[in-house]
């Protein structure tokens, strides 16, 4: 028997479908965003449907000490206090935009309505949309925002999001991401976020559950898990490290901002955020090069002192190097095998990591 955790999510599921078997077991913290990440067909959506009770798997599900499912109990979907955002907005075509938003709200007792309509309207910028009658007249991104609002208005104790951006074009994605980041900061309920896009995960998640062929192959805090070289995430083309840093200085002359984090600092393009606010920076492995001596005469702004932690072969010509910057932060670097040998890089060595580009995500 798996012990019942009083806090957080604890899920064990087995499900045999025609061409696919799901056999997962994972836990996630009781707040923040947990990304369910994996390639297409790895079972992410099926897992989310099991959690919602839309698929009847065997196993158990505990949410903050409440039993939603075990050997003797199976709560029907409409009795589970969750919000579900599907890939397509799936607004009801026969209802107005406002009636869509209020569909779930009307179905929970007034005492349970913890998320006020005005709050959701503000978080998701729905003010102009709510009085537009026919949902078919909204854009894809607008429809998805209404769908997210509709789910939040049921005051869920768990929010499930199934690739809410994947059906949108790039423009709509960029329009919606800031809203999701805002929810990430404001919501105090756990969110399970299914995605196969690493940039989305790096931007939104705190915790990562990796799925492959219906099984959980790893789970843990986002930054640590992304830096684990034995996992497939470290070998994706856009693999990289995530560093949380605080705004420390604005350089008005060159229009740059300095971010400080334990172990170093990064200069990035001007960020319009007050001093001390925490932002998330993503440094891709392919943008980081390594020097054994302090580089001179370089155009690169960000040179960090680092210590090599692990080196792993990646294909016939490349290696991926994990470096520690300070105590807690890590950087990944993808270099050629020849460079490794040429520089004589070994674990434990002190080096200089040069980041050619830093992507700010928050």
């Amino acid at each position, binding site marked *: 028997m798996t012990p019942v955790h009083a806090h957080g999510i604890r899920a064990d599921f087995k499900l045999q479908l025609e061409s696919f078997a799901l056999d997962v077991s994972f836990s996630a913290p009781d707040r923040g965003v947990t990304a369910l990440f994996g390639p297409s067909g790895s079972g992410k959506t099926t897992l989310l449907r099991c959690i*919602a009770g*839309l698929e009847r798997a065997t196993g158990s599900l505990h949410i903050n000490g409440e039993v939603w499912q075990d050997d003797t109990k199976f709560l*029907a*979907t*409409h009795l589970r206090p*969750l*919000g*579900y955002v*599907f890939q*397509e907005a*799936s607004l*009801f*075509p*026969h209802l107005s935009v406002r009636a869509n938003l209020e*569909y*779930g709200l009307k*179905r*929970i007792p007034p005492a349970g309505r913890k998320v006020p309509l005005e709050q959701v309207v503000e978080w998701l910028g729905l003010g102009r949309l709510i009085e537009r009658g026919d949902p*078919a007249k909204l854009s894809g991104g607008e429809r998805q925002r209404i769908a997210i609002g*509709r*789910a939040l208005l*049921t005051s869920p104790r768990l929010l499930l999001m199934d690739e809410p951006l994947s059906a949108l074009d790039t423009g709509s994605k960029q329009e919606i991401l800031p809203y999701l980041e805002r929810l990430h900061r404001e919501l105090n309920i756990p969110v399970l976020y299914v995605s196969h896009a690493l940039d989305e995960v790096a931007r939104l998640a705190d915790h990562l559950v990796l799925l492959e062929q219906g099984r959980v192959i790893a789970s843990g805090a986002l930054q640590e898990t992304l830096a684990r070289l034995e996992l497939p995430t470290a070998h994706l083309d856009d693999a990289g490290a995530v560093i949380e840093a605080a705004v420390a200085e604005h350089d008005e002359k060159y229009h740059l901002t300095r971010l400080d984090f334990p172990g170093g600092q990064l200069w990035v393009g001007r960020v319009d955020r007050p001093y001390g606010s925490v932002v998330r920076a993503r440094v891709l492995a392919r943008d980081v090069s390594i020097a054994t001596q302090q580089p001179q005469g370089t155009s690169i702004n960000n040179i960090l002192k680092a210590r090599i932690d692990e080196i792993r072969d990646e294909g016939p010509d490349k290696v991926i190097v994990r470096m520690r910057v300070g105590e807690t932060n890590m950087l990944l670097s993808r270099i050629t095998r020849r460079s490794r040998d040429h520089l004589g890089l070994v674990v434990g060595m002190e080096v200089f990591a040069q980041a050619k580009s830093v992507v700010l995500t928050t």
Partner: protein
Amino acid sequence: MHTLGPDDLQAVWLTLKLASVATLLLLLIATPLAWWLAHNRKWYRSVVAALVALPLVLPPTVLGFYLLILLGPQGPVGELTKALHLGTLPFTFAGLVVGSVLFSLPFAVQPIQNAFEAMGKRPLEVAATLRAGVWDRFVSVALPLARPGFLTAIILAFAHTVGEFGVVLMLGGNIPGETRVLSVAIYNHVEAMEYGAAHWLAGSMVLFSFMVLLGLYLAGGRLARVMR
């Protein structure tokens, strides 16, 4: 110039009553049946679907013949209705209702079933995640989304019952005020060489059927625009 007599008006009234009662009963029967057919994937689903569709291909006299035997005093259903002190159904209005419901069943089931299938499971799943229970989901989501299907079913079932002849003749005969419906009355007039009266009734039926179909297509076009 021959116009409609009181007998004819009685036949028209009886026909409208029969079609209304049959349509109402058909909606009650066809809705759960269509739901079941739309969502079930068991092997015997095909058997049920074929049975429901049978009146589409059978000559009405065949259906009427077997109903007469089944519901008659010696038939199993007849024995049952006698035991329940309900008498036997053939040659009564109730018998015509039973016959009409069976005969028009596919016209009611199929449009509703198509509508349920076209909406798919997603809207119902969405409603479930928004706290709507089974009945709530059906009423607040499935029924409104299937509205065009219901409209088609109502019009087809009603019109088809109005136009029915074979089953009525086999099962109901020709009792004025009880089973003599419009189609039978026309037949009587023609038999009696009263072509004027036959024209009045037949002409009104042509007009009525045309109006029904016109209404159906106009409503269909409007609904299609609304659904987009």
